[in-house]
């Protein structure tokens, strides 16, 4: 009979789950405030999915174009998010991003420079001005390495690597800690904490074509859901327009939007620059309508409007999807992305070095000579844990969320470059929120039964005599989500997905892992299935409920944005009967001063006087 006192126990004030940009930034904040801070991560430190971010982090510093300021960044973010964003979060983000970027420089980050020696900023989809601080096309690596190096020298902060959470533990309503296992040994460990910050990233691994790594199984959404928090607007899944499509082994791997930011164009098999056909009315006034004007923009004419390739990701992904469906796709079911005809080989290698190597080594293609083949890939969750926009705390006392796992900031569609800035802005705010909470909170009590239940559920997977291969259940889940909950959705397909999910849930309950618990990939995969199933159900049920098309959620049977749906958030939570409960919750009205900014013309907001 297992007893809790036999388990390894680690006590912290704050436990941060996830060591990507948001988790590390939150941890540094908690450590600086003097709290005993623990960070756990499934991989080695520095390998989190943040490392894959390529293009840059958006912050209205105005280094490349002095007309930029936080209000225009805020306006771009709201418009890109189709006005479903949490107003206050979008305000925090636009206002605080520049200070967070400058702070990274003090911590060792080395961004590309302007001629004046300032941080260089590049163009990206949906951003009016060049706004993305970047390092070639490896900005995520720079961010994570900078935060990692800071974290290992931060007093009060300990990183626990290759450790996975099974369940959060509560004392009554509030958070008390987490039950985890060490991947290397398979041994269980109990972390106690007054506050837990979820920084677990997204859940793209429920789809078969995804830019996400194995870690992105949506653990944070599931942990929050099981602990009684609410998830908001989970139906908004971003399909990045440009993933690799060939060869099969790299299908879905990200091709940075920076290619288009640096002038890359999209072509169908007939050589047509098709994006000119797909400019939404709302963006027509601010988008070039001729190839000639788009060329002037690339040549640096500040009066020329932006090319349509730099429309928001939801628009570009749907357009590519439409071209392929109409039979105008490339040989392997994508479209062509051409930078070779636009920039010199030297420029491409300087600004997009990892894209150059990625295609050269994985696809045997030289992007300085030939166009790439690209197509949409499941990339990012706009939805997530519903949090207070100031403290980042969920409705469960002591449970915070920051980064991709948190919802609200990006509304129905995230702008490229707004994720890395989100991580550092909201990582810090969640840290601040947890510090304030811990100061006002006594140490919670430990409920041993919750710990034992969690451990027993995990060991049952190893102990049962027979059962199904977890990898095959995962593959079937991915296939169903890819086929039924993709870029374009219908009621019939979504209902098919729900039926599939129920059957997959029954199979997952009887999954079997062979071998011992030491670094057992099959056991890890089996444990991760629960989170993937919860995430998939929340996305599917949300998509079924939201009868409109907005941003990252497109219903073939409900075309266009519907006014009644911008007024509500779709919320999912665990009901008293253990089943998922869905509700459309009316949003509070936006603060008038922010609504005015979002609806202003660019001319009204431009220039330093508005900074």
């Amino acid at each position, binding site marked *: 009979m297992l007893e809790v006192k036999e388990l390894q126990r680690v006590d912290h004030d704050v436990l941060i789950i996830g060591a990507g940009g948001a988790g590390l930034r939150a941890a540094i904040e908690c450590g600086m405030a003097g709290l005993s801070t623990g960070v756990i991560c499934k991989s080695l430190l520095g390998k989190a999915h943040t*490392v894959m971010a390529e293009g840059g982090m958006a912050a209205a510093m105005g280094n490349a174009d002095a007309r930029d300021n936080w209000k225009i960044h805020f306006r771009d973010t709201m418009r890109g998010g189709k006005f479903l964003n949490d107003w206050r979060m979008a305000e925090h983000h636009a206002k605080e991003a520049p200070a967070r970027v400058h702070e990274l420089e003090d911590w060792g980050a080395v961004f590309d*420079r302007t001629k004046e020696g300032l941080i260089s900023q590049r163009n990206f989809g949906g951003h009016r001005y060049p706004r993305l601080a970047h390092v070639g096309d490896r900005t995520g690596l720079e961010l994570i390495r900078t935060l990692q*190096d800071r974290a290992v020298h931060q007093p009060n902060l300990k990183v626990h690597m290759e450790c996975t959470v099974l369940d959060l533990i509560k004392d009554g309503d509030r958070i008390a800690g987490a039950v985890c296992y060490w991947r290397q040994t398979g041994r269980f460990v109990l972390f106690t904490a007054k506050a837990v910050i979820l920084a677990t990233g997204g859940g793209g691994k429920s789809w078969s074509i995804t830019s996400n790594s194995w870690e992105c199984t949506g653990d944070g959404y599931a942990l929050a859901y099981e602990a009684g928090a609410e998830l908001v607007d989970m139906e908004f899944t971003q399909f990045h327009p440009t993933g690799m499509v060939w060869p099969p082994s*790299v299908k879905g791997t990200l091709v940075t939007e920076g290619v288009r930011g640096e002038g890359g164009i999209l072509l169908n098999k007939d050589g047509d620059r098709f994006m000119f056909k797909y400019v939404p009315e709302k963006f027509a006034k601010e988008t070039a309508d001729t190839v000639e004007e788009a060329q002037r923009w690339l040549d640096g004419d500040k009066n020329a409007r932006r090319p349509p390739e730099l429309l928001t990701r939801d628009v570009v992904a749907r357009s590519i999807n439409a071209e392929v469906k109409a039979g105008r796709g490339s040989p392997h079911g994508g479209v062509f992305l051409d930078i070779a005809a636009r920039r010199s080989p030297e420029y491409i290698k300087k600004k997009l070095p990892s894209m150059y190597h990625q295609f050269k080594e*994985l696809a045997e293609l030289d992007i300085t000579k030939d166009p790439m083949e690209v197509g949409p890939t499941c990339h990012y969750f706009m939805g997530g844990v519903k949090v207070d926009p100031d403290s980042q705390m969920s409705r469960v006392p002591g449970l915070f969320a920051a980064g991709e796992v948190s919802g609200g900031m990006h509304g129905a569609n995230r702008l490229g470059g707004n994720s890395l800035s989100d991580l550092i802005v909201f990582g810090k705010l969640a840290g601040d929120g947890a510090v304030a909470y811990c100061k006002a909170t006594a140490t919670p009590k430990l409920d041993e039964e919750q710990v034992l239940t969690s451990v027993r559920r995990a060991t049952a997977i190893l102990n049962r005599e027979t059962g199904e*291969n977890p990898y095959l259940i995962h593959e079937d889940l991915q296939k169903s989500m890819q086929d039924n909950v993709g870029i374009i959705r219908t009621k019939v397909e979504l209902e098919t997905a729900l039926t599939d999910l129920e059957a997959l849930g029954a199979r997952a309950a009887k999954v079997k892992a062979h071998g011992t618990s030491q670094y057992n*990939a099959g056991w890890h995969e089996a444990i991760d299935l629960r989170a993937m199933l919860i995430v998939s159900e929340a996305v599917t049920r949300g998509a079924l409920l939201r009868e409109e098309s907005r941003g990252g959620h497109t219903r073939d049977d409900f075309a266009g944005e519907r006014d009644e749906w911008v007024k509500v958030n779709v919320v999912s939570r665990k009901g008293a009967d253990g089943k998922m409960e869905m509700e459309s919750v009316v949003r509070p009205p936006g603060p008038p001063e922010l609504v005015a900014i979002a609806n202003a013309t660019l001319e009204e907001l431009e220039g330093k006087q508005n900074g």
Partner: protein
Amino acid sequence: MAERNFRVWRGDADGGEFVNYKVEMEPGMVVLDAIHRIQTHQANDLAVRWNCKAGKCGSCSCEVNGKPKLSCMTRVNDYAPEETITVQPLKTFPIVKDLVTDVSWNYEQKAKIQPLQPRPREADGTHRMQQEDVDRIQEFRKCIECFLCQDVCHVLRNQDRKDAFVGPRFMIHLAQLEMHPLDTADRIPAIKNEYGSGLCNITRCCTDVCPEHIGITDNAIIPLKERVVDRYYDPVMMIWRAITGAGAK
């Protein structure tokens, strides 16, 4: 498509052996794809680290036919069709299980090194640095910490002097700190005395295996060695110090 033969090391700290697997091929496969196929269909519990699968995170380091490689960037068709592909864990670090090694020693080295100590910001709150002044350290900051250079370094791999040398990965980390335009700290004494710059004998094996093509030896280690020499062994400076009484640390 045809099947190919793979030999994968299976075992733990107490020992193990190579196990043969036949794997179904499809176009463009990399070694990590083959490992995943084995995991899915033949050995669910096979231990392997990986994350990005695009050469950006440095998790999937192993030795393929005896050469340190990122398995996600090593194409199967780089090897002759009839050739058996042998995959084994990094030799320089202790085995945890199968292809996974204990690389925690590397993290300890990072923690020992004094971090950036930046000069104050300018009056407008910014730092000004010219691109040409940061080009050389941006090269070092491309490092994905795959530790292939550490794996192949003779001082660590053959001489097992982890007690005396931090290895090429951390020499480039030190180089980027020492050459950082904003930095005000002095790590030269530690580079000589604690981090063991003198132990590297410049065989350039680390540079050869770097998947990021960083000029580890020529651009980082040799310049650091030169800085140590200038500080401690320059005869003119030795005389100067003898006259002025200024001692080298």
